[in-house]
Every structure is written in structure tokens, then in C-alpha cells.
């Protein structure tokens, strides 16, 4: 039996076993009371202002709490109609429990605004027909966004039904269960969803500073020719299993899409390095993916991205690293030839230390014998556990707040540049994302390229 999580603020209204009409009536009363209370004796009632409807769907208590907290933070800054939906086990009929809470803001310089948060715990068939449930609650004429926490049921009717009434779906591919498979399914969504649907990924938003920093390097006109001289790219990421390559694949898909690279093949390199080979006009580009151990980063998070090449007789290297204040480890000479970024390439050095220690594919290939060793069960007696990438706590708000960029052009001394990363909590990312909408052609292109790359890798 699921646990009932009540909204954190005191509800203005609560109903058990109610219908959507009951909720709508209650909502009208809450709004009317607020308008009356705020209007002074001789002052006119201020009209409501609303910029979007934000629907959050949570599979469990933990996610519901995240949704509640995030929605409250957004509501505190912004006039939204917020709906938080939690699916519960089908215990009673098709009705549901509902709460209405409100976030009231009274800025010094403006009149007060109220954001109502409608929380619904739905069961049974209602949970399978979210569109019918939420449609009456939507605010007309403003965009509707569906934020699906956890792992959305890509490919299932339940999700497609909900998407009928929304303009954008927001997910976080850093938190998917079975990330490898789920990511592929997500990439297929845009082919089957309605043409107006925008797809947004909080993981893509977290990559923005990396994209910005790399784009910055190539922004000056005199460096623009370097774009067609890139020959080598290195992407380091934290975590072991292939599901942790999503961010790395999105970064690479972004570069490939923007620069017109064509994926040719992927090969396994030494020390757990996997190499993707791209064709860029009449030259080739190698992208090296490496998993690194870094306790300061969550699994799947990027650790470093490097690009190197030459153009017009000048060589260049640009290296962007996460959390450059990590403890320095003595460099390994053989590694430095590949990544000589001023001796600061901690992530690469750590990888070199670890290159003989593990290889995820080896683990995968030997799963049967490892299971036997661990359990003593004979083959076929019990099913080995599939190596799973743990998704819990894959993101941490404190993991590295700074990017260090090291630029080397020609024989000049390396130029170091420090830039701050934005806050990466859900509310900040979601606000940033929703402020520009969920239709992002660059993301769609990068997602398709990343999916193809993941397949090859």
C-alpha cells in the first residue's frame, strides 16, 4: 500500500474520494476569496495573471515531495497554475483525493499574486486517462507543460494520452531507470507524439554551460576556422555502466549535429576507452569516451570535455573540466601525450590509474560466472541480476560549481579561465527551461544523434 503524502503547506481545501468537478468548485472559491481579501475598500480587484499550467506527475512519495517543493518554489516567483499528480495503487474506484494549497507573494512594488497548487492522488482508471483528468483544470491560452518525474512510460498509451493536452514534456534523463533503454525509447517519442509537442530534458539544461563554454572558444572570427580542423575530442564522465554515457552522448550528438559530422563506427580502445569515429567532410574526427572515478560527481555527470586539432598551420586545444579544485594526482606520462592540458587533467589521470581495474563490458560478458561466484547457485538455478546503473542520487546539487577552461593555441602558454556553473536544482533548471519553452530543435537533433551513437557504442 502506498503512503499518502500530504502537501507541505496547510491546504486551503481538501477532499477525499472527490471528482474533478469538486476540485473545480473549490478552486473557484479559493480564487474568489483571495481576490476579495486582497481588494481594499476602495480598490478594484486585481486581475489574475498566469503564464502557464505546470503539471507534475510523480510515481512515488520521494518524487512527489520533489514535485511539491519545486512547484512551490516556482509558484512563489511566478504566476502558474500548478497541478501535482501522484499515481497510487488502485484501491478505490475512479475517484481521487485532492488538496489545494496556495503560494501568495506580496512583492513590495507589486500587488499580491497567488499560485494555487492542486495536488491529486489518483487511482485506477483515472490514472490511465490523465488527459481527461487534467484538461478541465488547464488555464486557457497559456502553454501547458507536463513534468514527468522518474522514468516516463515511453511507448505506453498512458503517456501518449497525457501528451494529447500538453505543449511540452519535461523529463530528466539523468534519473531514468534502465537509462540505456529508456533513453532510446525517449528518442523515439517525437516520431509518435503530436507535432506540436516539445520535448525537454533537464540533463540537456545541465549541459548548457559546457556547450556555452565550448561555443565561446570558437566565437572569435579568427578562431572560426578551427571548427573545421577539429580532429580529436575527449569526453570523460563519471560512473561505469553504459547508461551513464547519456550526457556524454548528448554532448557528442550536439557537436556532430552542429558541425555536420557523420557517425561511421565505434571501437573499443585501450583502458576502457571507447572511440566513436566520425566523418567530417574529407577528414575524420575521433571522439574518446572514458569513464572516470570521481567521488565529487554523480554517476553520468560529465567530468571533462577536450577538443583538439589544427587549422591554417596553428594547433589548438581547448579543455573544459568540472570541479578543477579536486586533489591533484601525479600525472602518468603515457597519458599526457594524449591529453597534455597543462598538467591539469585530473580526470584523465585518474582514468589512467584505473584503466586496468575495470571494464564494464567485461563485467557484462562475465555476468554468469560472476553470479555463480557471488551466490554459489548453479547456472540456471537463479537469474543473475542484470548490472543496473543506480539512478538514485545520480544528481547532487553540490557536485562541482565551477568549470575550468584551458586554452592552448600554437606555442603560447595555456590560458586558464574559470566560470561558474548555475545552480542545478530542479526548480532552477525547470524555470530556466520553461522560460524559453520546450521546443528546441538543437536538442531534438542532438538527441537523435546521441541515440544513434549510444546504439553504436
Amino acid at each position, binding site marked *: 500500500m502506498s503512503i499518502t503524502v500530504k502537501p507541505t503547506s496547510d491546504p486551503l481545501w481538501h477532499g477525499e474520494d472527490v471528482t474533478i468537478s469538486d476540485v473545480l468548485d473549490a478552486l473557484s472559491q479559493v480564487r474568489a476569496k483571495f481576490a476579495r481579501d486582497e481588494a481594499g475598500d476602495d480598490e*478594484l480587484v*486585481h*486581475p489574475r*495573471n498566469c*503564464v502557464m499550467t505546470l503539471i507534475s506527475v510523480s510515481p512515488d512519495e520521494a518524487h512527489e515531495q520533489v514535485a511539491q517543493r519545486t512547484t512551490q518554489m516556482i509558484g512563489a*516567483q*511566478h*504566476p502558474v497554475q500548478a497541478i501535482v499528480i501522484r499515481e497510487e495503487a488502485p484501491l478505490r474506484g475512479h475517484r481521487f483525493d485532492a488538496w489545494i494549497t496556495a503560494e501568495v*507573494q506580496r*512583492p513590495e*512594488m*507589486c*500587488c499580491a*499574486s497567488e499560485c494555487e497548487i492542486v495536488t491529486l492522488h489518483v487511482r485506477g482508471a483515472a490514472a490511465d486517462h490523465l488527459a481527461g483528468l487534467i484538461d478541465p483544470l488547464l488555464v486557457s491560452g497559456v502553454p501547458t507543460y507536463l513534468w514527468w518525474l522518474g522514468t516516463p512510460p515511453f511507448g505506453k498509451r498512458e503517456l501518449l494520452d497525457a501528451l494529447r493536452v500538453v505543449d511540452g514534456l519535461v523529463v530528466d534523463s539523468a534519473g531514468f531507470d534502465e537509462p540505456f533503454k529508456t533513453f532510446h525509447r525517449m528518442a523515439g517519442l517525437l516520431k509518435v507524439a503530436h507535432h506540436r509537442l516539445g520535448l525537454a530534458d533537464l540533463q540537456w539544461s545541465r549541459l*548548457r*554551460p559546457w*556547450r*556555452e*563554454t*565550448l*561555443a*565561446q*572558444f*570558437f*566565437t*572569435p*572570427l*579568427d578562431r*572560426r576556422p578551427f*571548427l573545421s580542423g577539429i580532429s580529436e575530442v575527449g569526453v570523460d564522465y563519471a560512473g561505469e555502466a553504459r547508461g551513464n554515457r547519456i550526457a556524454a552522448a548528448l554532448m557528442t550528438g*550536439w*557537436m556532430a549535429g*552542429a*558541425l555536420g559530422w557523420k557517425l561511421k563506427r565505434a571501437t573499443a580502445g585501450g583502458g576502457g576507452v571507447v572511440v566513436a569515429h566520425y566523418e567530417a567532410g574529407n577528414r575524420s574526427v575521433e571522439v574518446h569516451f572514458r569513464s572516470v572515478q570521481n567521488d565529487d560527481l554523480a554517476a553520468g555527470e560529465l567530468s571533462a570535455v577536450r577538443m583538439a586539432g589544427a587549422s591554417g598551420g596553428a594547433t589548438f586545444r581547448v579543455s573544459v573540466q568540472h570541479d578543477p579544485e579536486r586533489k591533484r594526482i601525479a600525472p602518468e606520462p603515457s597519458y599526457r601525450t594524449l591529453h597534455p592540458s597543462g598538467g591539469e587533467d585530473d580526470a584523465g589521470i585518474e582514468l589512467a590509474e584505473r584503466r586496468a581495474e575495470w571494464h564494464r563490458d567485461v563485467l557484462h560478458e562475465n555476468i554468469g560466472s560472476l553470479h555463480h561466484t557471488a551466490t554459489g547457485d548453479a547456472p540456471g538455478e537463479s537469474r543473475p541480476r542484470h548490472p543496473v546503473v543506480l539512478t538514485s542520487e545520480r544528481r547532487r546539487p553540490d557536485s562541482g*560549481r*565551477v568549470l575550468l*577552461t584551458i*586554452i592552448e*593555441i600554437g606555442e*603560447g*602558454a595555456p*590560458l*586558464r*579561465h*574559470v*566560470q*561558474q556553473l548555475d545552480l542545478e536544482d530542479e526548480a532552477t533548471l525547470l*524555470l*530556466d527551461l*520553461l*522560460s*524559453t519553452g520546450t521546443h*528546441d*530543435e*538543437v*536538442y531534438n537533433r542532438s538527441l537523435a544523434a546521441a541515440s544513434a551513437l549510444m546504439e553504436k557504442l
Partner: protein
Amino acid sequence: MTVEAAPNPLAEGLHDYRVADPAVMVIFGATGDLSGRKLLPALYNLAKQRSLPAGFAVVGAAMDELTEDAFRKEASDKIHAFSRTQPIDDRVLQAFLASLSYVKVDFGKLDDFKALGQKLQELDNTNHIPGNRIFYCATPPPTYQTITLQLQAAALNAGNGFHRIVVEKPFGFDLKSARELTQTLQKVFPEDSVYRIDHYLGKETVQNILAFRFANSIFEPVWNSSLIDSVQITVAEDIGIENRGSYYDHAGAMRDIVQNHGLQLVTLMAMEPPLAFQANEVRDEKVKVLRAIRPLIGEDIEQSTVHGQYTKGWVLGEQVPGYREEKNVAPDSQTETYAAMRVFVDNWRWAGVPFYIRAGKRLPKRVTEIRIQFKRPPHLTFGREAMKEVDPNAITLRIQPEEGISLKFGAKVPSAGLRIRSVTMDFQYMTSFLVEAPEAYERLLLDCMIGDPTLFTRADEVEAAWTFVDPIEDAWRNGRPPLGTYAAGTWGPPAAEQLLKADGREWHRP
């Protein structure tokens, strides 16, 4: 010169991606008030939002004997005190401070400028900067010409990369001095490398006037003399002159506010749609409006303008002294602290529509707004009695402090009978957008680094504004009309009320 190039493909899809090329910004007057309160904090915030590229460097240039460490310490203190974003991020700050250098420059000494040139050369080499330079004159206006000529003498105005100069308003004291300044600047830098900064244009809400007008289709069809009765522009300050007595007593409200902010608001309100939101397109349209403003000459000035000076009074619950009792103000000063006028924009769109402009100090509140008053409906369908509480439609564009837009219209009062009263539909920035607005200087500094002069004032704009203002200033100096007075904390001299009353109108209470 602007070089057209294919866009950076890696920047596609990065909204708000505005990054400058590596450059050195030289701040003349780096130890002064403007630098400490505005420029250095703005640059820090640009660094914080990742808008400064790797290699970007700032060189402080001033007459003070300072070590680089001392300048960095001073910069750090100012950033802590005046940054828009708080708390200060120490790692970003340290990285930013590391990009600062300091060179002592006596503006009268060519050798100092040559030494500055050597420093810039060093930075080019170490920071991969292809010779790009921005010279920011955060100094009193009389120094602009000296600095400009010294830059030329030291050959710092040309070479590889771009070379831009930024000067602060006021751009001259009158038409003659403005032309002299322009001539000097243009002798050394091409016009498209001269950035005349009026920070007002960097305000989000000022830019939003254009978005409101030209990103919506429902307002432009009514934006003309067929439906608009009049326009009121109010730039009111509750503060006095603070420590600027010596400057203000020579400038007055006309030169300080109306000649620049006031007329800029008129242009944005009245201009025709530009072909694109690009520098020359926008500024061409603004200049057309300035040239279409009917000049006030002779008796027009007495009938259409009001100037006044505040006497002691009460503002925001506090008793304040009169203007002539302020520090560094002549006891018999004739400088106006309030200016109001009626102007007409003589073109097809605005024929016959009066634009009322008022600006003043020690008014009851700080507010800047444009109010567009529409005409009454041609026929009272519901009868005079039902409509007696209805004002004509109005759109108010509030620039500060409650940034927003308000539409006033009539609605039926719920009852069995038929009674109409005015209601407002408000849009407020503060509760409607997710993103905190950048400080005006952040926006404008970045524009300058990127080479986008759209929000900077062009020489012909400056001259057109002075052409309108100069005759009024001359008449006022000759007591035509006489300088009025108003108690601090009131909405200006009685003559200002009369100005509108004579037209059958009254000032809107902001």
C-alpha cells in the same frame, strides 16, 4: 567596421548566448564613482553569467598612484558593496580580479598613454587577444576630448582588432559643444566605434516599449492620432540633487533629464516600426521622430513650457531643504529642477496629438511612465449616467519602479441595472517573468563588447535633441517664462497644471 560572418554553429540554440570576443577594456577613471558603483560590478556579473570570454582583461587607468593589488582590493570592495547579485561568488570574483590590471595615467601626459599601450600589447600576447580594445571614459565630460586625442597620439585608436570608445551622457552642454565633441571623437574613431551611453536605454522596460509596440499586432492599429488623444511622459524623482550640486546647478532638469531620457522616451513611443531591431534601422527611426518634433520658438516657449525650482517641503515623510539651500548650489540660482512642456510630433501618425513631458526632482514619488490617453467613444451607447464613472481608455507603460503595463477600460458593474466603471488589467514584470532583469550597465557593456550599438545614441540623435532644447534653454535663461517654484513633495509649479488645463486635460496621477 562590422564584419559579417557565418554564425557560430555551436552557438545555435543557446538562448541569450551573447559572448564577446576576447578584448581589453580600459576604464579611464577606474578609481572613480561610476567605475566602482556600476562598471566593475557589472563586469563581475557578466563574468558570473559566463558572458566574458577567456582572455578578457580589464585595465584600470586613473591618475591615482595605485599598485595592481591595491586596485584589485578596491575593485573587490566595490563589487561586494554594489553588485546586483549577492552573495558574491568568491571563485568567480577571484578569477575576475585576476583579469584586472592597473596603469597610472595622467590624461595630459602622452608618455602615460604610451605606457598604457605597452601594457595592452602584453595582454594581447598573454591572453590571445587579437588587438581588440574598448576605451571607457568613466571621467568627467570635459576630459573626453583630451583622452580621445591622447589615444590618437599614442596610436591606440588603430591596429589589429576593433577599437571602440565609450562616453557617458551628457554629450555636450548644448548643440555647439556636442558638435565639437562629435568632431573630436570622429576624428579619432569612426562613428560606428563611438558608443554614447545613456544607461536609460539599457533598462529592460525601456526596451520593452518596442517589444510591446512591435511584437504585438493589436496595439499598432490604434497607435495614432485617430484614436489617441494625448500622451503624458513623467520622469519624477523624489530625491534632490544629493552630492551633484556643482554639476546640476549648471545643467538643470532640461539638460539632465529631458534632453536625453525624456526625448528618448518620446522617440520610442512615437517612432515608426523599424525594418529590424538593428542599430541603424532603430536609430534612423528615432532620429526621424526627433526631427519631426515641432520646434518651440519665441512665444511658443512661454505658452508650451514650464520650469520651476523646489523650495523646502516634505518628501516621503521627511522635511527637506529647498534647492537653493543645497550644497554647491548658488543661493540665487535660476536653475530649474522641474521642466514640463507640450510638444507635437509633426508627422502623419501624430498630427495634433500633444505629448506632455514633465521631469523633476523632489516630486512626491519616484516614477517614470508613459501614459497613452485614448479618445472617448464617439457615441455614449449606455447614456451619460451609466458612463459617468468611466474614464477614457488608457495604456500606461511603467518604466520604474513598478515595471509593467496597465490597460484601463470600462466594464459593467455586476448589478440589475447598467452601470459602467473603469477597471485596469495589469501586467507586472516582477511577477510575470522567471528571469531577473540584468542591470542596465551589464546589458550595455556587453552590447559594446559585442559591437551592437542599437541601444547607444548616435551623433545625429544627440544633435537633433540639442537642436530642440537649445532655444528653450536660451529663453528660460532670459526669464521667458519666469522660473516658478514648487514645494518639495508636490507635483511641480502651478503653471504645470495650467499647461494642461488650458487644453482641457490634467496630469495623470502616477
